């Protein structure tokens, strides 16, 4: 055949080309990884959802929850006989500067209160006393009542029996954006790990490409490994982008070592890759795997402290919440990035992640359906 014609005549071939393999042990893996990365690169949607979307989210939330200079409390004073007295008292008080009072008619005051325009409604009466209308369920309303009461009392001449003083203190690492970026990093690892692996697998199964692959001598472990490795490459880019945004745009301080951050991310990415593999191990259709994915990820979106601290949930739930892989990853990333915690101090969380990843991988390999 053609091969024979192209081979120059050699006197006595010691080892014919039949016995010397041309492709090495890892050729298949390398080609699979290359093909996967090329495919991802050529998919604009992937680029957006994996890189653009988290950046937009971080920027948007970072701006919305930026620390405002000095918080001013908006308060409505119902127009009437004692209204002027209230305004005078507030202005005369040393704390009055943080209160913005507006004198309005009662219906307008109540309407504004309902809509969140005012945190508190002050109803004065002719005898010189005041009634506060506040909502105990709204923290800012409770705060406002205390503040206004304090201002009115001190404006009216109350002397504090104990002298106190306060110093404003904003530590780097305690702002909302500082809290948010590690959480987004964790969530993004979960999203892209689960979708990137699970979706790709079911898509290939649906297209009968998995079946075609197992019809070749391809090692099945190489295939799964290459899919996971392609996620790790994306992960590196994600870390650089998100942390870069935090540091450059929001002056975030990364206290922990970059190596520890990288290692935690890798463990997290592998763990979610395993979970994605397990979720997609048998599903035949994109629709069915979508439902499963959401089912698996939903509890973590809610409980694992991406946008707000998971400590807010009742104590009974805490042990369970701590066992979720995303909680472990988010807590570990926050401790490392914001507090500079060492890897050794995180061993429990790393163990949780490894357990999820390992058990998922093993179950997935047992249940996986190639056809």
């Amino acid at each position: 055949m053609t091969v024979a014609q192209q081979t120059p005549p050699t006197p006595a071939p010691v080892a014919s080309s039949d016995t010397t393999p041309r492709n090495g042990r890892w050729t298949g893996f390398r080609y699979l990884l290359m093909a996967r990365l090329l495919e991802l690169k050529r998919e604009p949607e992937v680029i957006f959802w994996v890189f653009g979307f988290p950046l937009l989210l971080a920027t948007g939330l970072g701006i919305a929850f930026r620390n405002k200079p000095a918080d001013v409390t908006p308060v409505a004073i119902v127009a009437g006989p004692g209204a002027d007295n209230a305004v005078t008292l507030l202005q005369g008080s040393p704390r009055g500067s943080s209160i913005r009072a507006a004198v309005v008619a009662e219906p307008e005051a109540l309407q504004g209160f309902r809509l969140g325009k005012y945190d508190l409604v002050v109803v004065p009466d002719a005898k010189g006393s005041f009634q506060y209308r506040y909502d105990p369920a709204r923290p800012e309303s409770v705060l406002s009542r205390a503040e206004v009461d304090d201002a009115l009392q001190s404006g009216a001449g109350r002397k504090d029996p104990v002298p106190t003083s306060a110093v404003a203190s904003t530590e780097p690492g305690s702002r909302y954006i500082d809290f948010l970026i590690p959480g987004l990093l964790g969530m993004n690892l979960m999203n892209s790990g689960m979708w990137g692996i699970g979706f790709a697998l079911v898509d290939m199964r649906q297209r009968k490409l998995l079946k075609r692959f197992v019809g070749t001598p391809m090692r099945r472990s190489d295939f799964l490994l290459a899919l996971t490795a392609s996620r790790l490459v994306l992960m590196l880019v994600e870390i650089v982008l998100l942390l870069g945004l935090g540091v450059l745009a929001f002056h975030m301080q990364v206290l922990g070592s970059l190596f520890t951050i990288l290692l935690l991310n890798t463990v997290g990415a592998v763990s979610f890759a395993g979970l994605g593999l397990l979720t997609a191990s048998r599903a035949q259709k994109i629709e069915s795997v979508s439902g499963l994915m959401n089912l698996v990820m939903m509890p973590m979106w809610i409980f694992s402290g991406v946008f707000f601290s998971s400590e807010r949930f009742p104590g009974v739930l805490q042990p369970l919440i701590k066992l979720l892989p995303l909680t472990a990853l988010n807590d570990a990333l926050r401790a490392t990035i914001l507090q500079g915690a060492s890897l050794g101090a995180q061993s429990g969380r790393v163990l949780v992640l490894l357990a999820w990843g390992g058990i998922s991988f093993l179950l997935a390999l047992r249940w996986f359906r190639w056809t």
Partner: protein
Amino acid sequence: MAPAIQCRDLRKTYDGQVEAVRGLNLEIEAGECFGLLGPNGAGKTTTIEILEGLLEPTSGQVTILGQTWKDNSRELREAMGISLQETRLSEKLTVRETVTLFSGFYRHPRAPLEVLEQMQLTEKADAWVGKLSGGQRQRLAVATALVGNPKILFLDEPTTGLDPQSRRQLWDTIRGFQQAGGTVLLTTHYMDEAERLCDRLAIVDHGQIIAEGTPADLIERLGGHHMVEFQVSGSSNGHSGEVWRALPGVESVRQDNGFVCLNVHEPHLTIPALLVAVEKEGQHLLHLTTRQASLEDVFVRLTGRHLREE
């Protein structure tokens, strides 16, 4: 030497209910081009996927090159190239990247570019798979099967949906592979493909082989090499079957869509007698053709159905 492909009493039952393959025996020699011919749903794809080691049979034995899937699956995969009935390869990879990817799975692959040239895809080497026409995709699927330098080629309906020119090109490739010593097992529901390409073939229906042999053999078994088809007008249809059967040289008669088809040895004896008989019955001849008998006729004779029905 062990046969290239052998299976005994192969059975496959899906979900304990649907019997796709019901006791199938095959023996295909090295260097042969063997065809499984049958209508859709006959069990051809199930059979070929069991032989390819992609499906577990419910019962029965399979040996490929004298080895079983259980003991030597990796070696067997090195030795075979397959093309499934429908595989959608990744659309965002180029033709060259796709063939290179598959070449990476084999120990001694052929050069991807050489395979592309053989499949006449050189011009499309850098085009995305998503941009290819149906025929080009089909050729690419065969290229991924050839790049591993296989000894056995399994092709499941390789020319379905191809234009006539692409079909002929693919036939040339398959013949070339066979001439270089390769063994081919293909499924098809095109009779002309089976007749031209296959050394031997098996006609499969309802999961069983109902006839096996060379294309010429099978046609020979039909009785006559010629078909006479005609249509008559007139009222007396009831007994006319017997009239045609009694004509000289007629092997069998079948009614098909208002036409009468006679399978005959010697048309030059049958046709004059036919004309006389038509006149005697008081009928008019509306249509008359003669042609060579084909595998389609064999199939209809055996099953009473056409290949493309269902």
